[in-house]
């Protein structure tokens, strides 16, 4: 987890912005929930857990790019994963990414 994402491509930078936005939203949600009544608080922990696992996985996906062992493939994985997770209404899947993953 202490890898640094210094060598990422421009494409990955877009992905990073999406994840960072998710992190800000998580912070806001936790603050809101901490001030809520118990009944409200007890309604959302599963949703919160899902937000957290999505963010954790997204960062892990980005870190694989940094390792650079299989850059194109890792970038494709991160791209599809982060788009699926944080932009569920985006229909512009990258056919190149599909190709890399299907053929491997």
């Amino acid at each position, binding site marked *: 987890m202490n890898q640094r994402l210094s060598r990422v491509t421009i494409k990955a930078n877009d992905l990073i912005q999406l994840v960072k936005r998710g992190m800000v939203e998580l912070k806001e949600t936790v603050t809101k929930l901490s001030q809520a009544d118990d009944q409200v608080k007890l309604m959302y922990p*599963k949703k919160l857990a899902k937000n957290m696992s999505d963010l954790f996985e997204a960062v892990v996906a980005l870190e694989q790019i940094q390792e650079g062992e299989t850059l194109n493939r890792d970038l494709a994985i991160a791209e599809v994963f982060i788009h699926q997770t944080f932009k569920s209404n985006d229909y512009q899947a990258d056919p190149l990414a599909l190709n890399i993953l299907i053929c491997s």
Partner: protein
Amino acid sequence: MVQNFYTDDAVLRRILKNNLDPHFFEFADRQLSQFGERVAGEIDERARHTDRDGQPKLIKYDKMGEDISKVQVNEGYLKTVQETYETGIVGYPHKVIPELNEKGNYMFSYAQGYLLSQSEPGFYCPVTLTMATAYLIDHYANAELRAQFLPHVISTGEVELYEGATFLTERQGGSDVGANEVKAVQDGENYRLYGEKYFASNAGMCGVAMVLARMEGAPEGTKGLSLFLVPWEENRLNQKLSIRRLKDKLGVRAVPSAEVEFEGAMAYLVGDPKQGFRYMMEALNLSRVCNTVASIGIMRRAYVEARDYAKDREAFGGALTQYPMVQETLVNLITKLEVETYATFEVVKMFDDVMANSNALDEEKALLRLYIAIMKKETAEQAIEFSHEAIEMHGGNGYIEDFVPPRLLRDAQVLTVWEGTTNILGLEVLRLLEKYQVHEAFLKRLESAFK
């Protein structure tokens, strides 16, 4: 058809190469190559037989009508048991690996569990219980108990193997452990247990069971629960415990899950009597990592079955893989699978680090608990989703038990339930946020990746 679950999996190999010392990786790579072939071959065949025709059976009475409460399993299953424990899946985190002259780690053990779960997730349950038992004895039993039982629990073939078990659940409810009623009555230096455990997995197969019970005069709730080691066979032969019945389960049929009655079973107190629940919760975290590993194992198998079927199967004049919607499904599966595999082993790495550090800070422990909770929940749900997708990829064939996916779905369904339901995990997340403000450490750790 995949011939070797390890050599076919570049992601697992990459994870291990990046996380193990080179000499340990060389050892692990060799061992897992052998195990990967076995789980893709004979262990998979035996697992199918156990699931369909060879489930554990309870022999309740002998020919004279005496209660013997014996559990009978098939020969193939016994072979799988022997071969698997001899790999050190339970033993090596606790003892020196002769070939390396150093102690093993959980990274290697969980890699084995991930491979095993691709063919026999039912049997990974007893392995998990034995891991939890080894952890509890190693960390909290006194020297005498440890010397007597630990070598058997972590056996890799040099002494008789005692599989483990952890009995918590009672009839009044699984999640509400504080309502437990099984009593521990002092008898000399030791104790005798009375009462019933309702979901006792690996009953009849275990050599020792770790049991939560309440001493006389102990307070209500989880604070009044103490941890006991119960030798199974000695108590069974003395008719101090019995099995009422085995559960007829939807999946994970390899593991016998029973209703067990204690009728004065001899039990040894483990550790501080006031800390029994805390000890068990620590072991539960280990089991939740196993659950996560089992989930990604099922996800991997579901993906492989879907992928291979789509490659071979032709419809409308071409292989299924040439059709965009099939491609999209496969891409979504492989993407989620790979990311969750990396994330799971990231948690395993943290688990190894915290386990190896007796001075780990409360904040580190709380953060680990958070990662375990969120990943247990997410991967268990995905294991079900992946099995469902694999069935759908097979069309009508996917609904037929001749194919692998139906078993995957039946086995996966338990993963969101045992070791803490998703609701219980949600409460764990909330507790960690309120008590430790763990989200701050969580976000800090994620942010550090972007600096």
